[in-house]
């Protein structure tokens, strides 16, 4: 040790306490060759970790938040409004946050060369959106409800309907990519990605609520989903080891 200090402690990812799933979750077959196996080195937060990128009004255009109006034709499917607030864990609204989303079309097909699901593409739908949160931390997207689609994880595997969300938070440590689900999806019990979140209360925070207040007469159903960002996970002291 150059500085005469002891080495940083390490922690096994599986023992970390918090909302996030462990990366090692064999039911999700894609993790088996990709989840790191060595313990994580516990890094004190420095200026590098306590800062992060910020994007302003120039990063978004009005049509970015309305995925139904990005093409000459409107997309097929159930039109929906998805709205919610981005909050710090103390309830502080996070203003001016860039929110990026992507999703399958109503038939359950992504506009992506890797997606070979035998379902039609929709010339009226690309499936990508972004917006900035307002002074109350509020974001709002207009889109269509994404379809359920099969995947190759196990026999007869189907993903619950979901929208991918990407958020920055106030610091590098708060960066989050996640998925928003829809209430009462019958596929929840069978989905290894959803069920990778071990704590049930945390898992249910991934599920939006149907909201009649957001529902617009003769036009679109409303779903509400708040997102809470913070330092990602605590390290239980009794599980940390020194070398």
């Amino acid at each position: 040790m150059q500085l005469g200090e002891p080495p940083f402690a390490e922690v096994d990812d599986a023992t970390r306490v918090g909302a996030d799933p462990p990366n090692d979750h064999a039911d999700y077959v894609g993790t088996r060759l990709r989840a790191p196996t060595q313990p994580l080195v516990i890094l004190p937060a420095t200026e590098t970790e306590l800062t992060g990128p910020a994007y302003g009004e120039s990063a978004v255009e009005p049509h970015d938040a309305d995925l139904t109006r990005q093409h000459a034709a409107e997309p097929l499917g159930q039109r929906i409004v998805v709205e919610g607030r981005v909050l710090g864990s103390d309830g502080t609204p996070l203003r001016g946050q860039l929110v990026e989303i992507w999703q399958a079309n109503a038939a359950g097909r992504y506009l992506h060369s890797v997606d070979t699901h035998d379902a039609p593409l929709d010339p009226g739908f690309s499936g990508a959106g972004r917006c900035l949160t307002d002074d109350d931390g509020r974001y709002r997207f207009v889109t269509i409800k994404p379809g359920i689609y099969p995947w190759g994880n196990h026999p007869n595997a189907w993903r619950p309907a979901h929208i991918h969300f990407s958020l920055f938070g106030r610091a590098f440590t708060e960066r989050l990519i996640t998925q928003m689900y829809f209430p009462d999806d019958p596929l929840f019990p069978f989905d290894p990605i959803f069920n990778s979140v071990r704590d049930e209360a945390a898992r249910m925070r991934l599920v939006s609520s149907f909201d009649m207040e957001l529902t617009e007469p003769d036009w679109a159903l409303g779903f509400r989903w708040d997102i809470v960002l913070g330092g990602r996970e605590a390290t239980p002291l009794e599980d940390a080891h020194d070398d």
Partner: protein
Amino acid sequence: MTEMLGLTPSQTAGPYLSIGLLRDLVPSALVDPDGAAALRIRGRLLDGAGDGVPDGLIEIWQASPAGADDARGFAGFGRSGTVDDGRFEFVTVKPGPVAWPAGGLQAPHLAVGIFARGLLKRVVTRLYFPDEVEANDADPVLSRLPHGRRESLIAIAEDDALRFDIRLQGPQETTFFAV
């Protein structure tokens, strides 16, 4: 005392992340590639079988060249998808030193975040520079890594670029951090 809200859990970015995240907004070239200070960083994202991960996303976050106090006009943040055999590439500039909370400076480094299908949450590492031997030897992070966990964090000088391969598993698994 405010009651703390439960955090929203992470979920995998999945195989289609490029639809949402590799559009026009965040470049892999943080500076003009033809500029005098432009520095190319190339690498491969590799899985436990040694195969390239073709559907990942690498993000870098760094201080500006003059150090963390001067970020004018330099976003400090970039994204590169991984393609084919797991290759990614950035064009950036070497950051200046960043303060260490207990005093002193850290060696120049990039914070690196990795997302992919098969990763349920981001994994985080750092890239250090091979021509900063003295600063690296004195660095408060590199000098306190457990035995054998330093080498994977230092990029390798090649002809016209730095190489930084990221190994998610295996005997040469990259050192990842809990942050």
